[in-house]
């Protein structure tokens, strides 16, 4: 199987689906002439033309709203919101509209739309370094996908496009460069279903997106200390598949949940609460929670490094949970 980057995997998914179905089109800011702010759609404008690769005005509500409308009428838009920070501007369209229509109109309207957007940070300052996945995960009617690997990036994006529900597809800017094996052609993965990425008997690391990759790296380090960590990648945050995490904790009796968002009201609280609830009698210690410090992200590198979860914080949390 060829090794390609997360970025290439996404591009492959988009390209294949666009070739397969004329009703699939892309819309977003600077996805065409500029080549995509993270270069995912580089070359697409010349390959598919301006009708199907639409450089939109800076108008997040307009981008998502017109995509919803087009989806209602049978097209299959893939809307790109340049970063998740700007998705905040489109929340009314996503939450009050896309998520509601199928249910609210008694099943008569469908919204086969994908919204691709990106989390991440890197001295981008307070307005440009946020993670809002828990907000989306809170909304019935949405599917929320957070792929960590190139294979998932491709396989889940293709399924998102083929499915008929509104999908919030959250990429991570610090993952675009990672490589992995990705099946060529029709590689379709379900949009729900957590997975064990690494087995271990001592502690379960529950995570998604970039933190799942970090968890793998940490697990390798922990192994050198004689700690065998099991890594569970949630992969999608709505619907949530808690089973693998719960089963893992029943085996390891210890868990640390990892996310990049702010702690209070973040994804980690929900994941922990469900594990506590369903593995109550199996836990030997409170679940560790590693998340971002609760401050607007400072620009200065020295402060930013304190805010974001890193390997050391995870290792520290594991040690605490294991009482070492």
């Amino acid at each position, binding site marked *: 199987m060829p090794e390609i980057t997360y970025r290439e995997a996404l591009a492959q998914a988009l390209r294949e689906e666009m070739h397969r179905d004329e009703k699939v089109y892309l819309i977003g800011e600077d996805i065409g002439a500029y080549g995509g702010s993270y270069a995912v759609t580089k070359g697409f404008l010349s390959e598919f033309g301006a009708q199907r690769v639409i450089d939109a005005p800076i108008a997040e509500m307009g981008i998502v*709203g*017109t995509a*919803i409308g*087009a989806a209602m009428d049978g097209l299959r838009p893939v809307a790109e919101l340049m970063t998740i920070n700007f998705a905040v501007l489109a929340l009314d369209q996503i939450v009050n509209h896309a998520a509601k229509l199928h249910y*609210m109109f008694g099943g*008569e309207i469908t919204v086969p739309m994908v919204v691709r957007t990106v989390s991440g940070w890197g001295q981008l300052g307070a307005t440009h370094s946020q993670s809002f996945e828990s907000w989306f995960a809170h909304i019935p009617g949405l599917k929320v996908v957070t792929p960590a690997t190139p294979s998932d990036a491709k396989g889940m994006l293709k399924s998102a496009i083929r499915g008929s529900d509104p999908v919030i597809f959250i990429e991570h800017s610090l993952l675009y460069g990672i490589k992995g094996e990705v099946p060529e052609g029709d590689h379709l993965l379900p949009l729900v279903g957590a997975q064990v990425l690494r087995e271990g008997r001592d502690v379960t690391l529950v995570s998604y997106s970039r933190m799942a990759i970090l968890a793998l790296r940490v697990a390798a380090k922990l192994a050198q200390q004689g700690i065998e960590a099991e890594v569970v990648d949630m992969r999608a945050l709505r619907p949530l598949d808690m089973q693998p995490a719960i089963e893992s904790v029943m085996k390891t009796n210890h868990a640390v949940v990892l996310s990049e968002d702010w702690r209070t009201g973040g994804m980690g609280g929900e994941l922990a609460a469900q594990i506590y609830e369903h593995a109550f009698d199996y836990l030997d210690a409170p679940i560790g929670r590693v998340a971002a410090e609760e401050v607007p992200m400072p620009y200065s590198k020295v402060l930013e490094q304190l805010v974001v979860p890193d390997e050391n914080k995870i290792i520290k949390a594991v040690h605490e949970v294991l009482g070492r």
Partner: protein
Amino acid sequence: MTTEMTKPTGEAGTNGKAAAEDLAARQHDLDKERHLEYYRQMMLIRRLEEKTAESYTQGKIGGFLHLYIGEEAVAVGVVAGTEPQDHLVTHYRDHGYAIAKGSEPGPVLAELYGKSGGVSKGRGGSMHLADVKRHFWGGYAIVGGHIPLATGIAHSIKYQKKNEVVVCVMGDGSTNIGMFHESLNIAALWKLPIIYLVENNLFGMGTALSTHSSLTEIHQKARGYGMPGDKFDGMDILTVRDHVKTAAERARSGGGPSLLEAMTYRFRGHSMADPQLYREKTEIEEWRTKRDPILLLTSKMYAQGIFSEEDTKQVDEQVDAQIIAASKFAEESPFPKPEELYDNIYVNENY
């Protein structure tokens, strides 16, 4: 009762006087049928709204109820000026549009009762009811929220090279919100087949036009997009129809979007809960007595001899019967079943 007729065939026959008379008679019949249909739709809307008001006070309808009484000429004119395959997307004051677009009054009322026989199976309610097979995409209760959706439908039409037009209806108060701007720019930029039709009823809830909008000539907001704007009497169904038709023809032939402003007035409060502290009773009375769209149509038709009081009386009876039947339908329709609660969250459960 047929829906809006196609144009009269118009060929002048052979040339005898009889043929000409025949043609005139045929024309008169067509005119009568068409205008009586407008009358019928407006009456049906009004009577249905009166029925909903009654049902609301009886507790059969919950939540917010926004009546369309006084504004019937706009909905009926919009539908008369467009084709059945054209699309309609409106704000929450939507019952009249559903009816004009051909929805059955029974399922509309049943929706308000929260019954499973409702057009949206009782899930949407007064503010969110749709009848998609008639290309009525629904009422939407977030002010301005439907404007991008309607624009997207127009985008789809253009993308798929279909010969259809979208009408997106909103109130005067909705033209100040960001989504209006984003949508109109996109529609003008991409030359989409859409008509933005503003029902200017002089108030957004209790806030007067001049308190909420820098430009009180709403149609002039089109100038910010290089789009044609047009203002007209929204109490005259024929005027509405003609202006909508012009804009629809422009849209259909690739001329892009328009912003239309129909001057109208709601005879009732914003919703059933409105104490109406913000306007004078005399102002309402003035409109009611002098500018009732139904009276305006009948007096014109009577004067021109297109239809008679006899005709309207007949229609009134039919409408009354329809309301009774609708009410019966809505009453008898069952409530949704508890086990259906989780239906229609997703289309693909396992994708």
